[in-house]
């Protein structure tokens, strides 16, 4: 059977993506779905800024505003930032360690479809009686008394999406531990792979507390339990702890891959080995470790007592040390390098001062005594947008430009890329810098409007103008993507010319088996070493042989669909008689699909040596 490069129609392509287990196609699915939710969350942000642009505005009602801020936070964290990072992890990490796929391709597809159905479920709330309105943290004292089904959508949707993230994280861990190419020791792994590894370990330990919290909340709201109901002997603070035991590691799960992306960019475009590689690895692991000991700094004002507050304040400030190590290493990487100002490098340059701003205000809010002043004001809003937009979103935009050629084989337009950067960067600072001062002047967060003449009017208008700039930046990026795809000018293996790691040693996009022969890794920046030794590509570590590949499968889609159906049943079972049968039906679909998977042997297929040789001679790129 010839398995290489069959032409497909439109329907065939759709079916291909619905059933794919190829990490590169799953990466594209994550990119599309994450990009879609990013635009949705961005629209919600624009609505927030329109409402707050002038005092006493009635663009949206107070109730709708609560729904919009809740969905903005939830969408951006769970459905945009995480999946977009997962897209790059999926696309690049297996290539960087010289693997042909992730360890469990089937589970990889399952992870995507769970996230996708969870996200769709959450967003269907807009059309089915109102979105969640208790904030993205959904504190129990507010959430269990929320009317309607909004919070139920939050609980069930995040549960499904969270499962997907958890099994995705486990998959990456196993891949990095077991599937590194010959010679790829831990201390030769690129920094993006290292940060994927640490972030995945954090996912492994951080998501179970969220699962527990959401389960308790589900029982409280849908099945008559009283875990968080103080009047019935429950304890509402437990939700806050469970949420933040997950929630604080979560922000490091987001920022560590961003650090990894920038580490790659600084090394590539300074055309110099990353300064202090081993201290970078150490700092990444240390941040991952400390990230689990600081969650209560979100709860300084709940009355934990001075001892607990002091411990968590000091632990929080300690994280500044490894982060500082990283900042200096990036600066020293550029020092004495031959810096090339490409679009990704623009983002990397913009990232350092922006993120340091966020870090400095981080130390300020970590000071427990001072936090009583900052708590629940716009100062906190400014702080976390500086670290998340200034860190994670800039990294995602940078990675989009950096790895677009590797994922799609075409180069995004550099001029448009720089226009995007300037609009987004200026808009970002315009929007959020002034919010520090709004907070210090006393504007509380999560209010749907404010009165004129309190000194908030002009600053809020500036902030809203900034949001418009950011929107223009994103629109330019979308235009860039469309134009690049229409023109479809294909590029070679190493389009930036300075690629250092293994992904740049293979065609763009890579053939579906990635490496014809697994490469032999001789040191850090494996491809760069070979180039410096005057070679064109990697030295193979094995003779040309048959390659074993997994078969595509529709089962991951069905397993996720079953949970999606069951979630509707769980939500409506109290008021409608059809709820229980729908729960049963959904679970039957899920467990039936799992059963089918267990009893049906699927051994995959082999690409034969002859096909690979033929492929080589024709010069086809598969």
């Amino acid at each position, binding site marked *: 059977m010839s398995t290489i490069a069959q032409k497909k129609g439109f329907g065939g392509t759709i079916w291909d993506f619905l059933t794919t287990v190829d990490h590169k196609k799953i990466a594209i699915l994550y990119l599309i779905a994450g990009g879609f939710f990013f635009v949705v969350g961005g629209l919600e942000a624009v609505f927030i800024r329109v409402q707050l642009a002038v005092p006493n505005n009635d663009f949206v009602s107070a109730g709708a505003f609560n729904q919009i801020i809740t969905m903005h936070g939830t969408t951006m964290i769970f459905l945009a930032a995480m999946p977009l990072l997962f897209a790059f992890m999926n696309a690049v990490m297996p290539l960087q360690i010289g693997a042909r796929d992730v360890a469990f391709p089937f589970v990889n597809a399952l992870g995507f479809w769970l996230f996708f159905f969870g996200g769709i479920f959450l967003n269907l709330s807009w059309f089915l009686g109102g979105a969640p309105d208790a904030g993205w943290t959904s504190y129990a004292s507010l959430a269990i008394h929320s009317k309607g089904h909004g919070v139920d959508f939050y609980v069930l949707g995040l549960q499904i999406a969270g499962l997907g993230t958890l099994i995705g994280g486990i998959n990456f861990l196993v891949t990095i531990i077991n599937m590194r190419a010959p010679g790829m020791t831990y201390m030769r792994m690129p920094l993006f792979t290292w940060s994927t590894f640490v972030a995945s370990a954090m996912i492994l330990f951080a998501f179970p507390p969220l699962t527990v919290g959401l389960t308790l909340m589900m029982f409280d709201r849908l099945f008559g339990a009283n875990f968080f109901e103080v009047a019935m002997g429950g*304890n509402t603070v437990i939700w806050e*702890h469970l949420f933040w035991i997950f929630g604080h590691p979560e922000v490091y799960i987001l920022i560590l891959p961003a650090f990894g992306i920038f580490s790659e960019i600084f090394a590539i475009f300074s055309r110099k080995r990353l300064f202090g590689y081993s201290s970078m690895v150490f700092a990444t692991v240390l941040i991952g470790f400390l990230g*689990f000991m600081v969650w209560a700094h979100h709860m300084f004002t709940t009355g*934990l007592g001075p001892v607990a507050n002091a411990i968590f304040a000091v632990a929080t400030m300690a994280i500044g040390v490894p982060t500082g190590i990283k900042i200096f290493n990036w600066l020293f990487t550029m020092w004495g390098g031959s810096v090339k100002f490409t679009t990704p490098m623009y983002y990397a340059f913009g990232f350092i001062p922006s993120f340091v701003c966020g870090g400095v205000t981080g130390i300020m809010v970590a000071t427990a005594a001072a936090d009583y002043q900052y708590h629940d004001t716009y100062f906190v809003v400014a702080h976390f947008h500086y670290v998340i937009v200034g860190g994670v979103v800039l990294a995602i935009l940078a990675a989009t430009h950096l790895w677009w050629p590797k994922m799609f084989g075409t180069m995004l337009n550099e001029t448009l890329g720089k226009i995007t950067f300037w609009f987004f960067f200026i808009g970002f600072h315009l929007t959020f810098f002034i919010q520090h001062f709004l907070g210090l002047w006393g504007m509380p967060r999560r209010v749907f409007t404010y009165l004129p003449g309190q000194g908030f009017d002009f600053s809020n208008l500036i902030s809203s103008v900034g949001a418009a700039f950011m929107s223009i930046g994103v629109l330019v990026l979308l235009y860039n993507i469309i134009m690049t795809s229409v023109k479809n000018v294909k590029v070679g293996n190493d389009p930036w010319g300075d690629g250092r790691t293994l992904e740049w040693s293979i065609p763009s996009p890579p053939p579906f088996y990635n490496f014809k022969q697994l490469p032999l890794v001789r040191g850090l920046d494996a491809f760069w070493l070979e180039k410096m030794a005057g070679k064109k590509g990697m030295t193979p570590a094995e003779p040309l042989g048959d390659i074993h590949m997994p078969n595509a499968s529709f089962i991951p889609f069905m397993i996720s669909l079953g949970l999606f159906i069951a979630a509707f049943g769980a939500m409506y079972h109290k008021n409608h008689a059809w709820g229980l049968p729908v729960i049963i039906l959904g679970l039957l679909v899920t467990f039936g699909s799992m059963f089918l998977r267990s009893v049906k042997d699927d051994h995959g297929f082999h690409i034969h040596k002859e096909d690979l040789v033929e492929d080589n001679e024709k010069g086809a790129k598969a």
Partner: protein
Amino acid sequence: MTNQQLNSGNPSVDIEYRRRKSAEEMRYQVVSFSLMIFLTLIAFASVAIKGFTSWFTVPFILLLAAVQVVFQLFYFMHMSHKGHEAPQLFLFSGVFVAILTVLTFVTIVWW
């Protein structure tokens, strides 16, 4: 690797060494198994015998449980063998996070 098959057909495998190693392994397993049964009996006894308050029995049983988990991991799930460093790292990290959570709950949430 001591936990691989004896009948691999590989001439370089020292079968005598393997056999000795397996016998040793077996002895450890039997010893730890009987110890675990013994610990379980003690746990039951501490509840059954009158005179101990629950302030003693509850922590005592939890301690015995922890010992049993260690036995289980090291003697039955071969965690002491070579090549189990990564699972060890992740198990201990998980235990660390769990202990931290429990510690917080018993210090600043419930009491």
